[in-house]
């Protein structure tokens, strides 16, 4: 029964359904916060770590190949614990409180993958940040809102669709350059 429920929740999460996210949050957050607070962290750290785990779960839920091999709570707790351990190690601090009774699963690969995603996210954020307007809005209109060139030309004040296309091309090339210069140098 519980497993069915959790499958439903994951399906909801994959569809970015607010109710499902809220339910997962409500059921599992407190345990993670307790872990972080006990181990040199603040409530703010706990929130960060938990949300990071939620993103991991979200990416997993979206991929069709994913099936949960443990209970949802165990997965979230394991991911959070792993992330927090890594952050503490980064600051040369270590876990003090060892918790015996909670079940853990190995999630090294997932956390590693998430770190790569975080790196990509930060790189893109920086690239878009230095791209400036109107390039940012132009690319968003085309690639995210999927508007056609005619429409974009009209609302951005270009004389025709061809003009808008050229502008979009130039903007895209600039963003690619910004993105890949950081991405490749850190890879």
């Amino acid at each position, binding site marked *: 029964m519980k497993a069915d429920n959790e499958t439903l929740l994951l399906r909801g999460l994959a569809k*970015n359904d*607010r109710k499902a*996210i*809220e339910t997962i*949050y*409500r059921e599992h*957050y*407190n345990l993670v*916060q307790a872990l972080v607070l006990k181990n040199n962290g603040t*409530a*703010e750290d*706990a*929130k960060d770590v938990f*949300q990071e785990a*939620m*993103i991991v779960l*979200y990416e997993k839920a979206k991929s069709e190949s994913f099936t949960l091999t443990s209970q949802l709570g165990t997965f979230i707790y394991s991911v959070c614990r792993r992330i927090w351990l890594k952050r503490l190690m980064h600051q040369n601090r270590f876990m003090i409180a060892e918790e015996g009774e909670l079940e853990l699963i190995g999630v090294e690969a997932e956390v590693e993958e998430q770190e790569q*995603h975080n790196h*990509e*996210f930060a790189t*893109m*954020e920086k690239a*878009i940040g230095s791209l400036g307007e109107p390039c940012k809005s132009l*690319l*968003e209109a085309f*690639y*995210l809102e999927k508007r056609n060139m005619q429409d974009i030309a009209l609302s951005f004040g270009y004389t025709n669709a061809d003009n808008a*296309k*050229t502008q979009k*091309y130039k903007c*895209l090339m600039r*963003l*690619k350059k910004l*993105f890949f210069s950081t991405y490749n140098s850190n890879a």
Partner: protein
Amino acid sequence: MDELKMLEQIERYINGQMSPDERVQFEQLRKTNPEIDQMVVEHTFFVHQFTHFDEIKKFKSKLNDIHIDLAEKGAIQSTRLQGRAKVVYLVNKYKRVAAIAASIAGITAIALSSLVVSVSPKAPAKEIAQLSRQIDALKRKDQELNQELNQVKNHVTTAPPDITYKTGGTGFLINTKGLLATNAHVIQNASHVVIQGNNGKDYAVQVVFMDMAKDLALLQIVDSSFKAPASLPYAIKQTPGELAEPVFTLGYPRNEIVYGEGYLSAKTGFKGDTMTYQIAIAANPGNSGGPILNKAGEVVGILSTKQTSAEGVVFATQSKFIHRAIDSLRRQDTAFGKVKLPNAGSLKNLDRTQQVKKIKDFVFMVKVN
């Protein structure tokens, strides 16, 4: 623009907008041309990165939203420690770090101050001579003197009083409304101050600002015969000059305007004074208060004192203190609320003779009794 067309093809291919025939053709092209294949791979990756970024950004803000919502409803443990609890928590968390930081800061401060004391140069203060000029009073004929005295007795005028001026220096205009900068030591203990232009004409001035510590004074021309210029040729720089930068000055060590040039030899002045520069330039009594200009014709300082024990060592007040003085004037007196210093000069690409020709009408002899 071939690449633009290619990109369009790639996008249509990725989005599945090609007709089956076109698709087969394009896939053939991909196979035979590794460059195009690479472009397809790269573009797919990049578009995915771009859309994925947006998706995660939105997801993150949704998570934040939910977090605040649930915390407010009390569905998850409140994340905010409040009031005393938070202070106690922070104190406990950071007391060790704070103690270490405080002791490091203390040790560093003591070490630094002892270092400064031991290395700062110890030169006697009397080595500094202020470059105001003792005007030779004997130059004036007795007759002239008597005449002038009679005139003073006979007429009460608002024009500059006819007085024998004993000391003097140099001053220069810093705005078009007749505001001048000079050295405070030039005009200290003065009962009368007038300025004399390059054309030999005297103008009555009022002292509106004086700062002995920075050796800076501002004078306002109050003479109705003064014709305000349309603009000043030089800018007053806010930033300090550079080491080794060539500089020049104009001043009145005698009754004629005199040009001198040198270079900025240290970014601090006498005994490491950070308000002044050290400049290597030939200066004589009377040069005090003259502008120090860089090669672009921007004012970087005001010539003030020289070291008597060494030849050619001159100190100049940094020009940013003129800006500071104007700021404090503005606060004291609303009449100066609109005073603007020139921040762009017109001398940049001129040769030196042209620059001097343009500047000399804005440099005045300051005469003091």
